[in-house]
């Protein structure tokens, strides 16, 4: 067990592609870090540099107190779980688990004990004598996990380990990985492009964009205070609504529609406004509101996603299924729940708090049920 310190790490591939640009990240001992971002943003590259499967072009990576830039992958005291499992097809499950230990000269009795323990934890005991091709995808995934666990490494590295599984199994395995990591307390670095997986697994999230860190933070912090429009649209489902608006005094103009609040004065006149779908609610009579023309509806059971147009721009609202719908609905939002971003850089502007409408903590759902 150890902390990992990534300092100003860059990766420049042959041909000049800079896949990772001066990334710094300190991972505490036992922490579960999830790297998340769209395809091609450099997540795997960063992970593989820590693993030693790619050379580090610039910067240093420390595991424990060792700089591991020039240390062989097998000597870095890490274990990796691959997307397609990468099990040795010619070895039995037992040998797949034991292989790394054998190569390190672990005594036979110790190997037996560790394999037995991992097999019990992952419930793969019945398959120990089978070859990987005689296992289902989920079972292979467990074996791949087992291969990492038996090594008792300082850190686990995961590169999208669940993306080959069906949706249901993915949810189960996600839970198991989380529990296992908590039980073992092993520092983990986990790569995914699935924001839901990232939210549920991470102690801290690292959102990557174009090889750079866009934001680091606890999942809920990232969700509630996204540092940029990129993070805002990437984290959370449905994606946060982003609308251009202009401010005149205490009034926000969305095209022809207007929201008013007395706390807007510090903001620039041109802005991007972020609105979470679940922060919108149906306006009560006499409340200020935005009128949405309804296009179509997605029923999610507990929620209903209403997609429509607000003055020619797309808007999605998550409403309670009990609310009656018509062609247009009047929606409102607590001004404290608006997110403001710079129009050109996309960076977050200071959050405003409007005590008159309600504190941040109480959710719109309550009010919606009442209205």
């Amino acid at each position, binding site marked *: 067990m150890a902390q990992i310190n990534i300092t100003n790490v860059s990766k420049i591939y042959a041909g000049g592609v800079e896949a990772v640009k001066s990334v710094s990240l300190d991972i505490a001992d036992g922490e579960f870090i999830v790297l998340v971002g769209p395809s091609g943003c450099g997540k795997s590259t960063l992970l593989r540099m820590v693993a030693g499967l790619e050379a580090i072009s610039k910067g240093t990576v420390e595991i424990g107190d060792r700089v591991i830039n020039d240390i062989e992958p097998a000597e870095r005291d890490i274990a990796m779980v691959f997307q397609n499992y990468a099990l*040795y097809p*010619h070895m039995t499950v037992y040998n797949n688990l034991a292989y790394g230990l054998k*190569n390190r000269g672990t005594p036979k009795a110790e190997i037996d004990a560790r394999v037995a323990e991992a097999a019990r934890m992952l419930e793969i005991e019945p398959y120990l004598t089978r070859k990987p091709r005689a296992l289902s995808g989920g079972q292979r995934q467990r074996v791949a996990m087992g291969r990492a666990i038996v090594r008792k490494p300082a850190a686990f590295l995961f590169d999208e380990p669940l993306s080959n599984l069906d949706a249901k199994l993915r949810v189960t395995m996600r839970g198991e990985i989380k529990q296992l990591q908590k039980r073992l307390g092993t520092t983990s670095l986990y790569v995914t492009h699935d924001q839901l997986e990232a939210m549920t697994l991470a102690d801290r999230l690292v959102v990557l964009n174009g090889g750079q860190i866009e934001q680091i933070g606890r999942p809920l912090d990232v969700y509630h205070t996204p540092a940029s429009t990129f993070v805002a649209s990437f984290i959370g489902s449905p994606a946060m609504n982003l609308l251009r608006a202009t401010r005149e005094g205490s009034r926000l103009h969305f095209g022809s529609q207007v929201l008013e609040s007395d706390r807007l004065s510090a903001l620039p006149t041109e802005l991007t406004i972020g609105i979470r779908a679940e922060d919108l609610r149906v306006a009560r009579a006499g409340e200020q509101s935005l009128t949405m023309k309804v296009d179509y509806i997605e029923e999610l059971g507990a929620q209903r996603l209403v997609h429509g147009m607000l003055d020619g721009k797309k808007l999605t609202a998550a409403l309670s299924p009990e609310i009656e719908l018509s062609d247009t609905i009047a929606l409102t939002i607590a001004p404290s729940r608006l997110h403001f971003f710079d129009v050109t850089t996309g960076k977050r502007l200071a959050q405003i708090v409007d005590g008159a409408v309600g504190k941040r903590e109480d959710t719109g759902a309550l009010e919606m049920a009442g209205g």
Partner: protein
Amino acid sequence: MTHAPLSSPTPAAPFPSGAGGLFRRFKARPSEDTSAKRVQFNSPLLPYLFLAPQMAIIFIFFYWPSVQAIQSSFYLEDPFGFGSSFVGLANYTDVLKSNEYLGIARFTAVFTALVTFFSLSIGLLLAVKADGVIRGNAAYKTLLIWVYAIAPPVAGLMGMMMFDQHIGPLVKFAGLFGWEMKVGLNYNDTAFAMIVVSVWKQIPYNFIFFLSGLQGIPVSVREAAIMDCRSGLRRFWTVILPLLAPTAFFLLIINTTYALFDTFGVIDVIVKDKAANNPITLVYKVYMDGFRGNDLGGSSAQSVILMIIVFVLTIFQFRFIERRVHYN
């Protein structure tokens, strides 16, 4: 299982699966058959009609001569073509009692073992080295594939020229160390040249199959091994080679057959007209006795013996070696 055209830039997948598929069919796995396309014929005779030309060729050029060989191995043919007389197993006992024949058999065994071993191991070594360089580089790959298309005849010719008594660079090179190489005159020198040229000629073939086999090993499995095992050599023995086993087994059979039969041309060029004290293999002996010595009965008996050897060898390879092969 179709083979990719030679010009294909990525033969990686088709080759090994072709090799694997070939042997899987021997095992008659049902899953293989269900995946194949099923065609319904209107007339039950039609499929046999389609098969007929192939069957005819196999029958005329393979089974019929075999039957004839077996038959004439029991007869003593008059050298001048005036009939023949039944002699039972006499041809066989003559052959098996002959010291000359047993000597040739011994040489053939050594020759086959050495040619197979060296052409396989050198081919593998080159493929492993090339694989390290061309991983993901299509241009290199295409260049190396060309070797396959042009090599065997040209390589054979080049190999032969290496040992030319007057201009052969290998002969001159050996001379530098005081080794006066006399290919065609000295038994050991001739054997040496035969083996070197035969190996030389077969390397490109093995190289290309091993290379495709190596490229067929998933990158992530190699990477997992890199994280599990520090020593590259150990990784090769414990992960790469076992995964290459289907290719290697296929090549083992091909190379044994090559060394036994297809080296005829090499031997013929090297010992031509001066067979007297030179090493030859069993196949060449069959030819010499039958066509030069006009001893059809003895020659037939020898070819039947050869058939039995190949038969036994193949059964042995499938029973004892293939069992250790992991097909993916």
